[in-house]
């Protein structure tokens, strides 16, 4: 079997699955993104049972499994819990981001869970766990998570 390709070229078929999706954001994410877009404010939901403030906001508390939630505003400043730096231009990285791309897990003041987002305006070697960072909003906001452009260190 090992010489079955002798003298012939193995055949390869190029293909892709390309299916458009329309994600309905639902009332919770819609409200979060409208507030972010129009007021440049980051909001979260607080569980009336356990008191946890969840960001990204959820309609249902995943611990308590109840929908006893109220909206609260959280700070746009917080603490960096951990981060990663892409050294390679991985296929998933958006075209407008150039390596090194830094992502952080940021716990904003007033929230009990952390948000994934970019860190920018800082060199990778200057980033450290525990550093204080603040949200920088995008000039043009379209109601997406990228209405926050990135987080930058608080000087």
């Amino acid at each position, binding site marked *: *079997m090992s010489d*079955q*390709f002798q003298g012939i070229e*193995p055949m*390869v078929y190029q*293909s892709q*699955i390309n299916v458009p*999706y329309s*994600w309905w*954001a*639902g009332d919770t*994410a819609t409200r979060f993104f409208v507030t972010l877009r129009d007021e440049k404010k980051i909001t979260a939901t607080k569980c009336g049972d356990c008191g946890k403030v*969840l*960001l*990204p906001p959820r309609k249902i508390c*995943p611990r308590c499994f109840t929908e006893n939630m109220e909206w609260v505003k959280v700070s746009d400043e917080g603490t960096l*819990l*951990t*981060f*990663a*730096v*892409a*050294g*390679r231009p*991985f*296929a*998933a*990285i*958006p075209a407008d*981001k150039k390596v*090194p*791309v830094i*992502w952080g*897990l940021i*716990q904003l003041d007033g929230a009990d*869970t*952390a*948000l*994934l*987002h*970019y860190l920018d305006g800082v060199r*990778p070697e200057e980033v450290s*766990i525990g550093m204080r960072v603040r949200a920088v909003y995008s000039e043009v906001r379209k109601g*997406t*998570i*990228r209405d926050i452009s990135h987080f930058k260190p608080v000087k």
Partner: protein
Amino acid sequence: MDRAAIIGVGMTKIEKRKISQTFADMAWEAVNKALTDAGMTLDDIDNVVTTSSDFWDGRTISCMAVGDASGAAHKNISCVEGDGTYGAFYGMTRALSGSYRTTLVTGHTKGSESVSSLITNAAFDPIYERSLGMDMITACAMQARSYMHRTKTTAEQLALVSVKNHGNALKNPLAQLPMKITVEDVLKSEMVADPLHKLDCSPVSDGCAAVIIAHESVAEKFRQKPVWVRGVSFCADSFFFGDRDLSRARSLAQAARKAYAMAGVHDPKKEIDVAEVSDAFTYQELLWLEEMGLADDAAAGKRLERGEFNLDGPLPVNASGGLLSGHPVIAAGLYSMAAVVRQIRGDAGGFQVQKAKTGLVQGVNGLGGQSHCVWILDKDK
């Protein structure tokens, strides 16, 4: 409670690119090897569980396409999406259900045919996270840093996992990347996603594995001495990264506790002889071992440095070379399971460890180890 045993295993060689085999050809090879290993024919198989992922296969309803190659014609066939250990769990419950006595479980992946960064990016929440462009490697880099920060585990200790496992693979003819390397080689390899170097990461791989699980009433009817399932459990943590303590794996600690309780294991450090754990990235081997109580908190790196996880150490970990030496994503856990089964049977060849009465297998599903499946296998019922 009724008992189940693993009575046959079959694996293809793990390779970077299996250009001479389609995914179905790989499944056919693995299934036939498992049947031969068990001394069974297809007629002895009551039902089939395949493990596959539509994205890795590049087709929808992918389980239906692999049925023929898994010998499922005219049999009840079902499918699990995720790691092979979860397929095996479902397969075991079917063998214990009373409706079936024997289950053939397969898992396959041809990583060489697609783009893992895009596939794993699609595991992120489409509304809040996906457009940021993270994938499995960058997600795990984040977890690696969090673990290293909390435990003071060093880059050198991570590198030593790679050195050990690639070295072990030299003794496993099925492994894709047998290599004699040094800590320095790992640290000098490309920093693909800081703090993970290229040699901290498992490769892109093609491979298929099959295991046969039997109810106790028929487990001793065939060729192999059964390897008994003494305990098994799986648990999942929160989906969102920011809801978890990434430096830990709470769901793994929970799954291990339950599996130990079921197996009657009181002191895992003493009672587990051999372990195959999910080392898709070097830090994971250390983090998972700590969470399963096979090393003290923040001390796995030190146990590793003392050679305690080596092939000739008191607790050989990934003696087969692990996933760092070949990582067909969906099949991964079945390869780990097959490696432990062979250890317990004394059939592991070059990577056979000295004492292998009780073995542990761990499989992972989800970004940064959201969910874990832990098995305790044993020579004795």
